């Protein structure tokens, strides 16, 4: 089992510049600690205009800073939005390769097509086109990274022969992932040999069904490159405290607040009827409140890593049994937890929870996640 941190960089209101500075630099401190404690990867999302929810609009810069302050931890550039109005594929390839050079080959490269009208509408992108643009995007990136000179005639974009520079540090290139929100996208990932970077909540049963389908489908994939990144990652929340009650209270504050921020976004399907977005994405598991029973206390939802170490171990054992390879954690939401709480939660998790799971060996740390061999702790 590999453990990652997932940075949204959510900011509490009022949205001051000072608070944005605090959030960004707290996250960098968390990244440094994650590297020291043996976490395997940090992911930085790409979002635009999602005020409060995510101010991580330039993840390549955040990750560059993180790369300069860490040694082993993998850098999840993801997911890069593969919508041509937002990122030109050449620029995305260049930035990913440059970050890989700067970090000595530690980049995992995620791809996504954005799920909100807030973002797509802001860039005046066509929601109907995002899936086919993504499909073309993931097919050209490996070529740009590996061919001395590259040209392309496609449906969504074209380029004459040019050398896309620099090339990545890793051979042949950073492993590719795609974010999975809508059911079925894991099969799109598998068909192309991409890792499935889950970013929406799912029950154990639902995740088990999707994980099995993914692992089965990727056996017969037509990979977009020489790398078959057979990995399933899911998103979770982490708040670990010795006292279960304290963990539940503080952790649920974080989860509930994140859920509220998430619910305010204008998802594409709500605003723009299209076949291209079949379901509403939702990162937050329910549990922050229940309109059917207003008096009910919010319980820790199934599968969420909030609790004392023993509870969290039990939850992760269940995810492990389902076939999930990577758990990525949100550590905070709009600074609901103070920085000391977050850091102490990470330390306790590393001390009490991590040793209960097979972990990458020391010599494998820093290698691409799919190449890391795990041994029992």
């Amino acid at each position, binding site marked *: 089992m590999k453990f990652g941190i997932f940075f949204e960089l959510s900011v509490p*209101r009022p949205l001051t510049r000072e608070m944005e500075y605090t959030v960004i630099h707290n996250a960098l401190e968390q990244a440094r600690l994650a590297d020291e404690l043996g976490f395997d990867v940090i992911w930085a999302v790409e979002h635009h*205009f*999602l*005020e*409060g*929810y995510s101010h991580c609009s330039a993840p390549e810069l955040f990750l560059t800073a993180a790369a300069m302050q860490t040694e082993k931890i993998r850098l999840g550039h993801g997911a890069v939005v593969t919508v041509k109005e937002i990122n030109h594929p050449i620029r995305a390839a260049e930035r990913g390769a440059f970050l890989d050079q700067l970090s000595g080959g530690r980049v995992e490269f995620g791809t996504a097509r954005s799920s909100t*009208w*807030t973002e797509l*509408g802001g860039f005046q992108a066509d929601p109907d086109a995002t899936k086919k643009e993504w499909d073309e995007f993931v097919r050209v990136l490996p070529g740009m990274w590996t061919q001395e000179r590259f040209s392309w005639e496609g449906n969504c974009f074209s380029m004459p022969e040019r050398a896309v520079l620099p090339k990545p540090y890793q051979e042949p290139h950073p492993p590719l992932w795609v974010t999975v929100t809508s059911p079925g996208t894991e099969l799109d990932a598998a068909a192309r040999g991409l890792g499935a970077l889950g970013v929406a909540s799912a029950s154990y049963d639902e995740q088990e069904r999707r994980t099995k389908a993914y692992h089965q489908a990727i056996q017969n994939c037509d990979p977009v490159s020489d790398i078959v990144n057979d990995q399933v990652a899911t998103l979770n929340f982490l708040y670990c405290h010795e006292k279960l009650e304290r963990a539940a209270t503080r952790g649920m504050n974080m989860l509930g*607040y994140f*859920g*509220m*921020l*998430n*619910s*305010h*976004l*204008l998802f594409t*399907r*709500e*605003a*723009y*009827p*299209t*076949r291209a977005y*079949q379901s509403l994405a939702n990162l*937050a598991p*329910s549990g*922050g*409140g*229940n*309109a*059917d029973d*207003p008096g009910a206390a919010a319980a820790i939802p199934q599968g969420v890593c909030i609790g004392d170490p023993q509870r969290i171990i039990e939850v992760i054992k269940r995810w492990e049994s389902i076939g999930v390879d990577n758990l990525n954690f949100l550590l905070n939401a*709009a600074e609901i937890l103070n920085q000391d709480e977050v850091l102490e939660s990470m330390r306790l998790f590393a001390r009490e929870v991590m040793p209960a799971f097979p972990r990458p060996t020391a010599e494998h740390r820093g290698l691409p996640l799919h190449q890391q061999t795990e041994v029992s702790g």
Partner: protein
Amino acid sequence: MLVGTADAAALFKERAVEMTRIDTDAEMLEDVVVLQVLCEIESSEECAMLPPGLHPSLPPLVNWQAWSVPASPWGPFTLATTRIECRSGLRPRGLLTGAFSNSAAAAEALRERWGYSVRVAEVALERRYDEVRCSVALPGPDDEILDIGLRDPVPLGMTDVQYVASLHAANTERGLRLVQCDPRIEPERAERGQPIIDHFDAGAWGEERIAPFYPVSASVVTAQVTLPRLRFVCRPGEMAFTGTEHV
């Protein structure tokens, strides 16, 4: 997080309808044509247009809907509504600011049984080959208050259009409440087209601060529409987690 800042009593003073009962039965309506046009609105007043129990969407939207109902217990009627997209707790909702119908009988039923703040006006929903248009006019010359529509429709799947539940301000025996009305709209035909927004008189629709500026989408479906039994009401001054009540 962003929350509504309006004083609920003042905000709904003119809009709230009187509902003596909130335990109405459902009504099914067949072959209803439903036009929905969405447009981003200026955000400077997004919180001022909502009570503290609601949150704005990011970005804020106005949602116009028009129904052409060929047959109902109150005869055929056409209904047009203006709503502000918002959130009640974690859920997307549309806060009704105003509604008009061309049928006094339908208006009365919608008002008394589902809490629509609806008045009688000249309401038309017309379909041509390449365009669907909704217009609303008050009695008198030059009193058009809405002219919206959809151009160049193309087919969609039956489940591609999303509708959000409505919140209607009503004075009930429990006091001022937001009545949650979530009609079930089951399309048999669905299309999307270019949104047309030629005229909107915000003041006539109960909220003069709605300032449309960026058209988003337009859809039209032919559907079976079920006006539901009411299940929940909300205290407008409280967040949904504590302010929601069962009917």
